[in-house]
């Protein structure tokens, strides 16, 4: 118990130090938000209990909790970073890059100049997307940020969310004004230098607000330049206005020694459609909590995911779809490939609340187990309180079809390539759910490269 207390105390000390240093010019509401979140985190503590801790039954975060992560050194200048491996096969239009939690202006796109972004005018435009920093938006007290930051992923989202909120200073703020359709993908890149000397912790934060009848694609990428241990505690809040159409792709390629815990909360208004695709190709211990609230009739959500388990990787995807009103629909497909001594966990919870008639909810989780040491745990959970609904779920765990392997081998394709081809075919469905050509191509290349690397 006392060790537990010190784990949280370490973060409390870091929080107090950060609040003393330069938090003074933040607006009061933001300082209060952080303070309340820290209190909540201290109260809840890391979910390390091994008994009766259902949401963390399959994922043990004791080693994460006990590691003394430190904040990255912000005084150190950023070295040269070659971004070319992370270029999308399309022109760079909207790109924000954060390195070890710090905004990297030289790597981010214009618009515009730094000066132009840092003005009221930038945050008030109505003719195009606003891809800016939370720090600046907070500085100018942009109403949308005040209205939404921390409101969708609150205390109920768990200790890791509170911890992120307690340290929220910067991050990406994306706002699509009413009626605006953004043709190019918006690219948010979070890079960890992952130097082995000392383990660092960062708190990437993303807020996406899509206005009425707007449309956009956002790619959130987590990349690593080294192979050290570090901890990424990410929170993304997505708000889709009436009739908005939003596609959000998360590509996670942290180092094999990294801890990656992310919380994504989506709130959808009438007739909006949000599609999320979560692709896990890296990390040591990975946990995602994705919650979608279908708050108004006609909303539709599509949740897709694929995870590749290698080495001792542990990937845990928890999804929750809340059908709070009648006439909303959700469709979910998660696929896992588990090799070596990896472990894949999927817990998909669909709740149909009383009165949410005419709900359509489908959910599928499929896993390929490729080695003796791998393990797949899946729990597709339906909780239904309305009768006029169509809900299905399915789960499967199996292996590559030996007949298909034989077919490929008989045509002169080697074992490794044949395996990669079949596995690629297996996850193709998820990659294909990405509508944007450039993002799909980029993701597919990343998946194929990760499969070949084995």
């Amino acid at each position, binding site marked *: 118990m006392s060790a537990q207390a010190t784990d949280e105390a370490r973060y409390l000390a870091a929080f107090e130090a950060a609040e003393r240093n330069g938090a003074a010019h933040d607006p009061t509401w933001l300082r209060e938000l952080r303070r309340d979140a820290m209190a909540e985190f201290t109260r809840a503590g890391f979910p390390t209990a091994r008994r009766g801790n259902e949401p963390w039954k399959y994922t043990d975060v004791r080693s994460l909790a006990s590691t003394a992560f430190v904040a990255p050194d912000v005084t150190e200048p950023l070295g040269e970073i070659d971004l070319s491996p992370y270029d999308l096969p399309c022109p760079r239009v909207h790109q924000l890059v954060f390195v070890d939690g710090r905004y990297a202006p030289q790597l981010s796109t214009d618009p515009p100049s730094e000066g132009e972004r840092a003005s009221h005018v930038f945050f008030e435009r109505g003719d195009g997307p606003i891809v800016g920093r939370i720090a600046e938006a907070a500085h100018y007290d942009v109403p949308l940020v005040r209205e939404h930051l921390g409101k969708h992923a609150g205390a109920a989202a768990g200790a890791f969310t509170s911890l992120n909120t307690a340290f929220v200073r910067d991050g990406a703020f994306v706002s699509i004004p009413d009626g605006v359709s953004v043709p190019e993908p918006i690219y948010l890149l979070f890079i960890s230098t992952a130097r082995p000397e000392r383990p660092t912790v960062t708190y990437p934060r993303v807020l996406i607000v899509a206005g009425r009848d707007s449309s956009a694609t956002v790619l959130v990428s987590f990349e690593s330049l080294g192979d050290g241990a570090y901890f990424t505690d990410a929170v993304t809040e997505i708000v889709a206005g009436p009739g908005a159409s939003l596609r959000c792709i998360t590509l996670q390629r942290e180092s094999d020694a990294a801890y990656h815990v992310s919380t994504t909360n989506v709130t959808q208004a009438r007739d909006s459609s949000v599609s999320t695709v979560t692709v896990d190709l890296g990390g040591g211990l990975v946990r995602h909590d994705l919650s979608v609230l279908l708050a108004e009739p006609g909303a539709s959500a599509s949740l897709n995911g694929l995870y590749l388990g290698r080495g001792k990787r542990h990937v845990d995807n928890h999804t929750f779809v809340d059908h709070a009103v009648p006439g909303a629909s959700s469709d979910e497909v998660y696929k896992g490939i588990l090799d070596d001594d990896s472990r894949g966990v999927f817990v998909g919870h669909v709740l149909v609340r009383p009165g949410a008639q005419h709900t359509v909810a489908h959910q599928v989780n499929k896993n390929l187990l490729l080695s003796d040491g791998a393990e797949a*745990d899946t729990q597709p959970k339906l909780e239904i309180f309305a009768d006029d609904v169509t809900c299905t779920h399915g789960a499967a765990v199996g292996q590559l079809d030996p007949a298909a392997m034989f077919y490929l081998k008989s045509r002169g394709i080697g074992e490794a390539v044949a395996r990669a081809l079949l596995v690629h075919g297996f996850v193709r469905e998820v990659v294909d759910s990405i509508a944007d050509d450039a993002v799909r191509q980029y993701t597919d290349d990343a998946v194929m490269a990760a499969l070949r690397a084995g």
Partner: protein
Amino acid sequence: MTSKETVRELETQGYKYGWVTDVEEESAPPGLSEDIVRWISAKKEEPEWLLEWRLRAFRHFMKLLEDKQNPTWANVSHPPIDFQAMSYYAAPKPKLELESLDQVDAEILRTYEKLGIPLEEQKRLAGVAVDAIFDSVSVMTTAKDTLAKQGIIFSSVSEAVKEHPELVKKYLGSVVPYSDNFYAALNSAVFSDGSFVYIPPGVRCPLEISTYFRINAEGSGQFERTLIIADKGSYVSYLEGCSAPMRDTNQLHAAVVELITMDDAEIKYATIQNWYPGDADGKGGIYNFVTKRGKCAGANSKISWTQVETGSAITWKYPSVLLQGDNSVGEFYSVALVNGRQQADTGTKMTHIGKNTSSTIISKGISAGHGNNTYRGLVKILPKATGARNFTRCDSLLIGDQCGAHTVPYIEVENPSSSVEHEASTTKVSEEQVFYAQQRGLSAEAAQTLIINGFVRDVVKRLPLEFAVEANRLLELNLEGAVG
């Protein structure tokens, strides 16, 4: 006929087995203590080892109770149970040494007649051997002689303890140890009676063996314990049925059932559970907290659970199979119906340990009124279980907009050569199907019944004929409102 009307009718229909039999009962004073455990053991003239085992279970239970380790994970809610307020033993008095039916108390016989239990001589010809358990004590075991000729032992556990102590000692608690869970610990401490079946090697049991449970006395709990052992190459089909009088107070039924199959043996275990579910407002009814588990200890053995759960205020029950022997097979077929304020949290656990083991789970849940029905299951494939297979299908049918249907399957796979499939769906009775049937001249009610019968058919057809008839009758009774 609107679904609202259906719901109302479903809610208001009565419980047909709710009378009380007026026989003199001998019961233990309410309360749970070491003395009560000793008293029960002494009453049953048990050997020292069994008393010791009960006491170990009792101490374990009291520790769990102290540490507040009572299970809270199930999707059911009820006020805390006062384990000191109930009586742990009730027996019809005086206890007779029963040789034939005319020695059984006439009131009890009438009770079983009302229940439609084939207890009489001529019914034996119908091929059913019955062990009837009235409150805590086994009243009568029929067809014992016929079975004995083949070397089959079918008796109450109390008798088996006296006559075959070596078998009971060897197997009691070998599948469900007293430390298994909260209610198993309680049962192990205070279990009163139950059925004991042993099928010798190579014997195919010629009769369906059956037990009927009835809770009669007020304020008593029933804690029966059933132990079935199928030795190498043997086969037995076992049926149990349950009912209880209508009472305002909740009664606890915490049974333990253990099944063991050796090489090439097979046990089919069927349950029709129709304990009193409480009234429309959720007052009274049985808390049915049961631990049932089978162990396929031998290669090529098979254990099959079939259950039709229509009664009880709360059902908390997960008939499970440990698939230890290579090529062993586990099956679980279930229909669970909730109505009124009933709550059911039921499912199964299939633990694949041996090679090429396979399991099938078919679960059909029907929710009506304000009932809540949860399927909770675990399919676990351990690393050594090469070539293991599982197929799971859980479907839920909702009748009315005040009920709930939930599915909580856990799948844990640690062997790459195994394959596991799970499918589930939740829907209401399709308007299109009703319309189609109506077009062909059926009334809406008849159409609904037809559709529900079709929905549960996969499970009901697994039951032995006599039970299939009873199951259909029970489901019809419970859906009488809809049938009109």
